């Protein structure tokens, strides 16, 4: 453990943790085994670790909001020179908001769904600063403006369900800084947000730090997020701080095995432009630019697995009609992997559903393995599904597997739906498929709840592959996984691509994952394909402003202030909040 002696004099410290231990009284077990850190005024300390590592509990301890039966059992927390252990509830209430504040993951849940967001900004000002209604409103709107929300008056009047995640996180930040606290804790504040939105929020935090002199504690499972902002990093695992030190030191000379894994992941499946060494070996097939005109001269062997022409999809009717996809065209040939990238709501999943014959297509056509599936009846759709030509893997394997079905039952389901095979044959196929995804056969009788995230995703992939599909659609297959599993699943997919030879449509909001596996990449932006082409070219020389912003927003271990300025320019042109 690196000592924190290198930081300057003690009165500079706004937050000091000394060997903080957190204990669960109900289960009688220690959850955090000694965390020490020192946050300098205007400084940024990062905590990295996967879920369950104890990083969020540490934050909750600092804020005094530990769950029931969980308490600080050792060490001390000093906030602005005061030991928080002895604070009365009233003193805590007085301290929170004015001296320390926080923003969290899933911003929508941290705002009252029944009250207009503006009122919630105003509430703090009126309660804590005693402002009049009018003054509080004016100040609230100023704050919303300060966090770069377009049209703060409009946002002021909205309810939580009417705003996007990025906007809500900005609202929360506005509330958090409204009383000008010394310390702001950002606990996974950008997790589950789109890459570009994440970059925007991180940029905002940096800006606020500089502008109003905030001291930040940034918590994330993503090393790159922390690396962008922090002077000092703590790496936590299973309640232990496994490594701690200045960011550059951690990045360049990681000591602990886990830290090395985190760094390596970014080097392999990130867009670490400065990372040396060759990118993973490029696939053999020649990238073809899309859209590609249908050509009769095309040889039979390269008949596309998927051909989408001018696809348009609408949801709703009348005034509520929403264009979910417009004029999309693409081709996937056998064995080819095409990545689809874009922010949430850009139409990625709609495209996937259209390829499955599940979306209400209003224009264009979809052909799968030479068969037109644009407008299937329910019966035809089911028959098409039973053929198993296209299969689908969901983002969250926990939710895509029936919790009451064993691995064997889940994997066998497509075959059983198709029918015509006896029990022994199905059993044999299941075992073969389970081996193919590198799962132990002993897991066949387990339930999803008894598996790890990576194992579950392997089960889902096995289920998708058992009907020998020509095309596999992977919808954010690694987004819900932690670093180690993410790497493993991506490796598995690359392996399957060469052994099984299945074509893939790989959907992700994470450019790193897409870049690591796709031959070609399609960029979706506001229901349209704005750019398509060879993955390497898109990553190295993005053409469309959105793609450029995307590439520039991807968290890397080395992005810095220059990127920020560039991003801001791009954002201004795109109206991205």
């Amino acid at each position: 453990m690196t000592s924190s002696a290198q930081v300057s004099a003690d009165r500079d410290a706004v937050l000091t943790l000394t060997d903080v231990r957190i204990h669960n009284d109900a289960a009688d077990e220690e959850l955090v085994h000694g965390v020490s850190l020192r946050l300098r005024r205007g400084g940024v300390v990062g905590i990295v670790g996967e879920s369950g590592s104890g990083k969020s509990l540490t934050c909750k301890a600092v804020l005094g909001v530990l769950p029931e039966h969980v308490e600080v059992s050792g060490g001390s927390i000093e906030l602005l020179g005061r030991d928080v252990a002895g604070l009365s509830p009233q003193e805590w209430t007085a301290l929170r908001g004015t001296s320390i504040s926080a923003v969290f993951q899933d911003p929508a849940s941290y705002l009252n769904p029944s009250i207009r967001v503006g009122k919630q900004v105003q509430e703090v000002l009126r309660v804590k600063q005693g402002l009049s209604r009018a003054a509080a409103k004016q100040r609230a709107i100023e704050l919303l403006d300060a966090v770069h929300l377009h049209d703060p008056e409009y946002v002021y009047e909205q309810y939580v369900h009417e705003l996007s995640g990025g906007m809500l996180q900005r609202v929360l930040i506005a509330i958090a800084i409204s009383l000008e606290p010394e310390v702001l804790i950002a606990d996974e504040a950008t997790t589950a947000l789109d890459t570009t939105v994440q970059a925007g929020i991180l940029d905002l935090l940096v800006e606020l730090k500089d502008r109003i002199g905030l001291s930040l504690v940034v918590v994330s499972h993503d090393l790159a997020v922390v690396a962008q902002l922090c002077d000092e990093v703590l790496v936590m695992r299973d309640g232990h701080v496994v490594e701690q030190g200045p960011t550059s030191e951690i990045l360049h000379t990681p000591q602990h095995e886990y830290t090395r894994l985190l760094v390596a992941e970014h080097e392999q499946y990130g867009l670490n432009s400065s990372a040396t060494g060759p990118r993973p070996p490029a696939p053999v097939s020649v990238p073809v630019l899309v859209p590609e005109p249908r050509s009769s001269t095309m040889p039979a062997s390269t008949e596309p697995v998927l051909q989408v022409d001018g696809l348009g999809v609408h949801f709703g009717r009348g005034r509520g009609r929403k264009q979910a996809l417009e004029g999309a065209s693409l081709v996937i040939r056998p064995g080819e992997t095409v990545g689809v990238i874009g922010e949430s709501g850009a139409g990625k999943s709609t495209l996937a559903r259209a390829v499955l014959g599940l979306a209400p297509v209003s224009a264009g056509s979809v052909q799968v393995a030479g068969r037109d599936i644009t407008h299937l009846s329910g019966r035809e759709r089911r028959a098409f599904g039973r053929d198993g030509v296209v299969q689908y893997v969901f983002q969250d394997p926990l939710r895509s597997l029936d919790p009451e079905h064993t691995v064997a039952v889940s994997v066998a389901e497509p075959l059983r739906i198709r029918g015509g095979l006896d029990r022994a044959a199905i059993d044999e196929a299941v075992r073969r498929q389970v081996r193919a995804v590198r799962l132990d056969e002993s897991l066949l009788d387990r339930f999803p709840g008894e598996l790890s995230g990576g194992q579950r995703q392997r089960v889902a992939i096995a289920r998708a592959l058992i009907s020998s599909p020509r095309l596999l659609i992977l919808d954010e297959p690694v987004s819900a996984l932690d670093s180690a599993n993410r790497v493993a699943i991506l490796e598995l997919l690359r392996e399957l691509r060469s052994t099984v030879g299945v074509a893939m449509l790989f959907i992700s909001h994470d450019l790193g994952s897409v870049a690591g596996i796709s031959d070609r990449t399609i960029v979706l932006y506001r229901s349209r394909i704005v750019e398509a082409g060879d993955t390497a070219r898109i990553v190295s020389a993005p053409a469309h402003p959105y793609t450029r912003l995307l590439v520039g927003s991807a968290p890397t271990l080395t992005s810095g202030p220059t990127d920020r300025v560039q991003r801001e320019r791009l954002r201004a042109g795109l109206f991205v909040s």
Partner: protein
Amino acid sequence: MSAPPPALTAPSAARRGVAAHRIGRAVASTARLLAIFVPVFLLGTFLTYLLGHLSGRSPAYLQLGDAASPQAVAAIEHKWGLDRPFLVQYGDWLGSVLHGDLGTSWYNGLSVAHALGQRAAITLSAAGVALVLGIVFGFALGALAAHFHTRWPDRAITTFTTVISVLPPFIVGIGLAAVFAVGLQILPAAGYVPIQAGLGPWLSHLILPAIALSFDTAADVARQLRNGLVSAYRGNYVTGAIVRGLGPRRIFFVHVLRNGIAPALAVLGLKFPNLLGGAVIIEAIFGLSGYGVYASQAAVRGDVPAVQGVLVVSVVLVVVFNLLVNIVLNRVTPDADRGV
């Protein structure tokens, strides 16, 4: 997974939209409620009418008694228009119902609407007082249980509400009368005096039946509120409010109550029909001649128009009450999408 993207409205359009949006939202939610309630009204009245029709009852036997010869029966049925096709009868009936005319009783030839008008004060007083009691005690018990969540007051309240909600209402009624009217002699056991005779006498006659009626409502409101509050306390926005430095009182009243109250309010809407329905038994026990007694007597006599009248009025009352509850709910929790 195919949720439409959040609106990325261009700034200028958004500015103009704020006021129009709010009005539009109110209009839309009202329209949505009406779209639910109009069919309920039509279907409810249709079922009611169909029921009367299917029962094969005829005013003839009520009116003729021992003089019910087939010709006399046919003549009376013709006079009442019962020999016409069913749908024609329903249409006519619905038409007059919409004009406030619920027809005349087969039994005594009096206007059903008038009879119900005379009884409205009694039933609505009893149901109203019961509703108030149900709300007051339901909310008090629910809030208390939530506050002492998982501790003994919570368990005691939960047990208490379970017991009172499963007690048959007639047992409750007779027990209350036995204790407070006969045993302690502090309240009358039966009868009704209009509120014009004074608030005291009025309430003294109503309090026992209202308590008996309110048990079920109070119990359910308490349970829902407790669960609602407990889960609202678990909401991240509570943590958020704590972190912002808001005090516990403010958090409870502004944030927790507002979000935890919805299930209790919703259950209140569902309980209103029970308050009216429970009147059948409670009114009989406490000698109140309200809708319940009227309905059960009419049903037992086979006085179809009277039964239909009570049901129609009840359905309207329930629908109106639910509309009110929904409007309140829409204001309290604007994000929820709901049916009746």
